[in-house]
């Protein structure tokens, strides 16, 4: 027996074909219900069907972050020509993508959209203490550690990231404002190794600049009085590398070259034998991811 299947959409009366073909040993089969229930000549707008999501039971951890231990080198103070190698802790943690801690910073994400995140942030900034610096700077007033609060906005597009942070002193140390702008891109050389070049610039208000680069009272020092003005005072280029060792471990290294510009560049502190417009900082750490 030969079987032939005809869809009703062919538009031929099956009984006629069956009668015609039967003597030839051909059995005509048909889709029994299709013809009357299905409109193959539908000409209206389609009926759009809404699908329902099936979600898995997988949960995100509330906490995620990293803890790194290693060595770092950094200028003794902003504008110093002396650099010191110390042990370093690199700590970052995030709770439910709302609260984050990054070394000396803590913040909360208050606005979350596909391309933008923004919120409030606070940080502790290192000061400048006479016991850390050389004789030439003795006589300048101490600049204590400052606590600053502010706002941030950040975005990332694939592996490109941009961020802006604005801080205002609330500890009475400099009574000024400071803005950091940064952009970078992560190159993923292979599944274990990434390199991210980063460019940044930092702006300071007049009070901020005067605190770190100005000389109010030259008595007892070798400096002339100097009034630092508001503006961009630091531009930097950084290269950050990470090599993944395993699911929870990696090693990281980064190196930042900063150039002090504008009013900072002309500061007598920076121009002194103990100062420099060239600033280097670097860190190498073994990092545990959690």
């Amino acid at each position, binding site marked *: 027996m*030969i*079987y*032939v*299947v005809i*869809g009703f*959409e062919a538009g031929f009366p099956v009984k006629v*074909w069956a009668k015609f*073909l039967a003597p*030839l040993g*051909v*059995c*005509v*089969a048909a889709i*029994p*219900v*299709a013809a009357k*229930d*299905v*409109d*193959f*000549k*539908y*000409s209206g707008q*389609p*009926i*759009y*069907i809404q*699908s329902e*999501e*099936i*979600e*898995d039971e*997988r949960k*995100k951890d509330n906490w*995620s972050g990293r803890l790194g231990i290693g060595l770092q080198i950094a200028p003794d103070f902003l504008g110093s020509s002396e650099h010191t190698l110390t042990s370093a802790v690199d700590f*970052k943690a*995030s709770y439910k*993508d709302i609260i*984050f801690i990054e070394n000396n910073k803590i913040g909360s994400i208050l606005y979350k959209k*596909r391309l933008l*995140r923004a919120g409030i942030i606070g940080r502790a900034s290192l000061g400048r203490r006479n016991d850390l610096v050389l004789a030439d700077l003795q006589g300048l007033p101490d600049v204590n550690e400052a606590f600053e609060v502010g706002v*941030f906005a*950040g975005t*990332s*597009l*694939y592996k490109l*990231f*941009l*961020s802006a942070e604005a801080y205002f002193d609330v500890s009475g140390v400099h009574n000024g404002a400071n803005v950091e702008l940064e952009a*970078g891109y*992560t190159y*993923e*050389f*292979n*599944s274990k190794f*990434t390199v*991210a070049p*980063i460019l940044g610039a930092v702006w300071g208000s007049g009070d901020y600049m005067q605190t770190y680069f100005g000389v109010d009272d030259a008595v007892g020092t070798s400096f002339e009085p100097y009034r630092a003005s508001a503006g961009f005072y630091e531009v930097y280029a950084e290269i950050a590398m990470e090599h*993944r060792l395993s699911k929870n471990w990696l090693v*990281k290294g980064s190196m930042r070259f900063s150039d002090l510009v504008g009013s900072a560049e002309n500061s007598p502190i920076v121009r002194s034998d103990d100062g420099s417009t060239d600033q280097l900082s670097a860190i190498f750490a073994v990092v545990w991811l959690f």
Partner: protein
Amino acid sequence: MAGMMKFTVIILMLMGAVFEQGAGAADAPKASEVIVLRVLSYNINGLPAPIKKGKEPHYARIADVLNERRANGTQPHIVLIQEAFDGKSDIVAETTGYKYVLKGPGRKDESKRGDAHWVQKTRKAYASFSDPQKFMGSGLLILSDYPIIDARHKAFNSDECAGFDCMSNKSILLARIEIPGLGRPLDIINSHFNSRSAAKAPKKAVFKAHSRQTNTLKWFLDKTHTGNPIIVAGDFNTKEERRYSYFTEIIGFKDAGVECLDAIGRCAVGEGTRVEELLFKTNDKHFYADGDGVQVQPRRMERNFDEMLNGKPLSDHLGYEVVYSLLNE
């Protein structure tokens, strides 16, 4: 008229002979229980501007072809489309006579499970988007002549993609379709998996992402399994051997291309269709599994939509169409 009748009879006899050769007495279906279903899977390369521009004539031509086939009564009953990102490609869904259209998840229907890739969270925490950043929807469509009585989807988790593929909300889309005469509804699944070199990401990362998507498809199949016959078709990016091996091992369904070519006589290959384009030299695939009391068999397959328009192909993929017979056991 008589000439046409004679021609038609010859054609029908030839078709019958094809079915007869392989069917055999033991597994010959009862004629009244066999249902023919044409299923087309087609990646229409509908990327939005400015990535792709001037694609409107191509979409229009694809719609024309489907309309011409409908006029001839040979249209695919179900069309699974991938990469329908461009709104202008809606013409394919809206002007081709398909009564039921199921759109896959859009950009905002993303799955928030999973975590950001470590590469994207190595800098400032707030600039690391652990929620997926999707710039396009899933690009999936299912067009059906038959009623879609239920529909489900699963967007791949944010750590189940790699490279540029992460920008679209790649998903699994299921349509449960009621086919008159069939003892159970048919489950049709459309999906588009992570690409390989086009993802511009390390090989290990894209393979891992693809494997995770395969695992998710398996989970989805287990979750939605009701004993219905299933056809899983789409752009699975399984041209790479190890991807294909892992996929077929985990999913466990029959590859329509393999089954058809193993059953020469029962399954025909369209004129001009190269065998390798049904098997391993393609990312487009059809897989299927029988249901409880319903047997699924590929009867004919072809790669189509191979014409050129203004010197350019309609898409960077060919259509992959399979004619299935569905048999109530």
